């Protein structure tokens, strides 16, 4: 779950230490969601790997692995000097063809999971619709809120 406090200043994320999903994967997933919702915008500075590991009380390597995944996906930039910075937003540029091809493969698995469990197809489509619309609305609201705040970064 991504928890943004009002004003968008302090943004916190939650991970489940007992989940079967590895912690680095959860970390990566929460940050991807925050970028989709406009809670994190290009240029936003992320907490450093060590600081985040200290804040969670988890292994530095775990956080580093999560950030490395995001870097390879082009969502963040890792710079020796300036640390980790959000590199893109839904509005930056259209997705690359390779990304879409790769993502479709994963989407197929995800859809198969629901379909195999008997989720009706119209409900599946409706949920997907709701999800995408939710991201669009959240991104609109969060990014314009940030603009009106007179962001000076």
């Amino acid at each position, binding site marked *: *779950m991504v*928890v*943004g*406090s*009002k004003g968008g*200043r*302090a*943004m*916190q*994320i*939650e*991970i*489940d*230490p*007992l989940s079967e999903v590895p912690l680095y994967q959860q970390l990566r997933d*929460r*940050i991807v969601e*925050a970028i989709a919702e406009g809670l*994190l915008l290009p240029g*936003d*500075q*992320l*907490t*450093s790997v*060590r*600081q*985040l*590991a*200290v*804040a*969670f*009380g*988890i*292994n*530095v390597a775990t956080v580093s692995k999560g950030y490395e995944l995001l870097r390879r996906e082009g969502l963040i930039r890792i710079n020796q000097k300036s*640390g980790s910075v959000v590199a893109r937003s839904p509005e930056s540029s259209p997705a690359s063809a390779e990304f879409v091809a790769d993502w479709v493969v994963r989407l197929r698995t995800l859809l198969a999971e629901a379909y195999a469990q008997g989720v009706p197809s119209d409900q599946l489509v409706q949920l997907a619709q709701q999800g995408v619309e939710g991201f669009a609305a959240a991104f609109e609201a969060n990014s314009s809120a940030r603009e009106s705040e007179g962001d000076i970064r």
Partner: protein
Amino acid sequence: MRLFVLFFSVSVITLVMTLMFVMPVLVRAELPLGVSVPQGRVGEPVVHASIRRYRMGVVSGWVLGVVLTVVLFASFPVAASIVPVLIAIALGMSGYVLSRRMIIRAKQNGRWYENVSVRLRAEITAESAPARPPLGWIMGAVLVLLVVVALGVAVYPNIPDPTPIHWDVAGQPDSYAAKSVWSVFGPVLIGFGVVALLFATSFLARVSPLRAVASDSPAESARRSALQSRLMTSLLGQVAVVLAVQIGWLTVAGWVLHGGGWGITTSALPILALLVIVLVVFVVRYRKAVAAWSTTPSDVRPDAPDDDRYWRAGFVYLNRNDPSIFVPKRFGVGWTVNLGSIGGVVVGIILLAIIAGAVVMAIIAPGAGHRS
């Protein structure tokens, strides 16, 4: 003069045991006696019972400490000023270790964490400003010591050679050294060192911020963390001022009253009173801050995970996965070291050496001081 030992020792025991007694209200409700408990279980009868038992241990530690002081002070004044305090603390601590087991047992038997969703929470953006170091207080402490140095320069010609460098509990000099800049200004230098150490400690709030807890709302946890850091750092600054005044007073009294006497022994009394005031103000403000958010009814939130396994005996933190050198105390105010990290082990050994050294010095120094 021995009556002074009695009074001093009883005051110290009372101060320490009072802090131990009120500690359960200074920690969050989900950590009664430092045991992880889900939000829904904080009201369990066993929780209240174990806190009652812990407090009985603290009270009996206080009683034993006071009785021991009264028995010892006439014949062994030095031992009477240290041993009863240590015994009282040891008794309070064993009460803590034993009574918290009640909660742990009930938690395991009742499977309190079954079907409770737990989360770790942390800030992902580097936005919130860390607490500022208590510069004003530290500068005040330095100013006090500088005034003492100026006074020392003024009275230097009148200081006898050899000069007394240590006084017994009755305020009579029992150790002398050849008069030199070092033997005269040594205590002030130690004072500067102590102030510097406290100043450095105040930076812990930056290095090791308080962890966000999943059961708080984000706004609450940000506020709590900021407030706690601010209160803790300003406490360090105030303690620095009190210690600077204490050291300054003792030093000046040593310079002016060559033969010792009441000026030296009684110096501890107003300082002790000042320290009590500082601590009481801190406890009240801290408690108010904690109470403000503990009672906020919020929507259902996940719990912080059960991390009892990282806290040996409820106060020694050992977590090899945690890169932190310092972590906020489990049951108490301030920080402790992570013995699962190399840095934590090094700092822990240094701290232990300092404490052990101070205790040993306090016990043997008056009798074994170098007499010249």
